[in-house]
């Protein structure tokens, strides 16, 4: 059974139809890369999965549980959505760390608040802290935990943002162009962390323009164009033997760079 099943997601902003019926599946431990030109709807798709946008139609199923079914409005109340969105994590292009908290506090804040919301008795703060410290070790920032975001480089901030998402133990971790806001020399350190996650079989969806990286890490690739999935398959098929003309055109723009 797939971890994630997305069926017929549609989203319209005003008069523009941005997603025109998206269907795909993701196996546990798989890494799905989504590629496609700017404006094709990749961000909107991730935002729908994370309930930042409400699709107009479609069904999202995680581990066999229907999280969202647009034909059943009862699945879309605010408090329900808050629990459901924890199945997903999202790493933003612009990091969005909380500036008034240290890197460590950024990572620990959401679990602490969640335990308060759920009235957890004897919440084990020290266990949470050691888990956070382990995460910092895994992203290579053990010596930066006490720093505020503005004291960190973009690459370091993005790695903290990844740790902040990981501590919530999402079933599926989504990345929206995680290196697009970074200077070229800083993309490597972030990609290395994501690569490490894929080696540990973290289930991920990665929207990226780093084609080489997508080919290496992905178990499955989707090429999106104008709100539809134009082509999908394993990285070999999509990158080396694209069938669709639009895929070939898109890839040719990256091949000589």
């Amino acid at each position, binding site marked *: 059974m797939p971890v994630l099943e997305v069926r017929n997601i549609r989203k319209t902003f005003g008069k523009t139809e941005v997603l025109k019926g998206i269907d795909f599946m993701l196996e546990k431990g798989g890494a799905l890369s989504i590629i496609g030109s700017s404006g094709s709807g990749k961000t909107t798709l991730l935002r729908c999965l*994370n*309930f*930042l946008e409400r699709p107009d139609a479609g069904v999202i199923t995680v581990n066999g549980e229907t999280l969202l079914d647009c034909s059943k409005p009862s699945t879309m109340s605010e408090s329900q959505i*808050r*629990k459901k*969105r*924890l199945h*997903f*994590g*999202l790493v*933003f292009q*612009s990091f*969005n*760390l*909380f*500036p*008034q908290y240290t890197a460590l506090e950024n990572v620990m*804040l*959401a679990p602490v*608040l*969640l335990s*308060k*919301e759920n009235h957890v008795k004897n919440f084990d703060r020290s266990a949470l802290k050691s888990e956070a410290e382990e995460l910092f070790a895994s992203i290579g920032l053990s010596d930066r935990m006490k720093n*505020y*975001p*503005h004291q960190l480089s973009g690459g370091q901030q993005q790695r903290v943002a990844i740790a*902040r*998402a990981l501590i*919530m133990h999402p079933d599926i971790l989504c990345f929206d162009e995680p290196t697009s806001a970074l200077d070229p020399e800083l993309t490597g350190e972030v990609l290395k962390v994501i690569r490490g996650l894929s080696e540990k079989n973290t289930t991920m969806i990665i929207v990226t323009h780093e084609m080489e990286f997508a080919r290496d890490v992905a178990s499955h690739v989707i090429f999106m164009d104008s709100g539809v999935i134009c082509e999908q398959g394993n990285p070999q098929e999509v990158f080396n033997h694209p069938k669709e003309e639009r895929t070939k055109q898109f890839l040719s723009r990256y091949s000589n760079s």
Partner: protein
Amino acid sequence: MQTFIEQLPVVIGALNVGFLQTLKLFAVTLLGAFPLGLIIAFGTLSKIRAISLITQFIIWIIRGTPLMIQLLIVYYFPGLVLHNPIWGGGEQGRFTAAAIAFVINYACYFSEIYRGGIQSVPIGQTEAGLVLGMTRRQIFFHVTLLQMIKRIVPPISNEIITLVKDTALARIIALQEIIWAGQAFMKGSHGISGAIWPLFFTAFYYLVFNGIVTVLLAKFERKLDYFR
């Protein structure tokens, strides 16, 4: 004729009483206008168009007319128009009327600053909180509020320093604040008349008060310097 040395304690005593009233008006205005301003700010940001338009209209009226007129209207309207002099004739009634006019006026100025502060916090902060499963309430108090405060401290500080001097406007409804107390010695009070020097002392009170307020606000602003 008393000597200056004999007059001085009398004048200082009277000015202190007046200054206490000034200080009280200052404090009550801030205590009332800080929260009321936030409510008005949420009003202008309301998704319900009628609420947003009505609050914007009120802000336009209050910011578009002199505080002095608002003081006069709040104080005299109930007695002269409604024939119901709810404030009574005493100092307490004058203070209440002045406080109401000041709170409403400053709340409207604060609300516009708050609104700017709320809107200046990037939407990505809220979205990051949502994605991590925080409630809207938690996001407001634990994520956006402090960032908003940091951004509004400089403009709010300006308003607070203006308020120190604006309290003198309450003189128009004969509130016995410090300028009223100083001026009394020109007309004649406590056996002293025709003396202008108490007014210079009055000015000195304002300078010291404003100096203290400025230093405290700068200190607070520096406290929030640790993040960007």
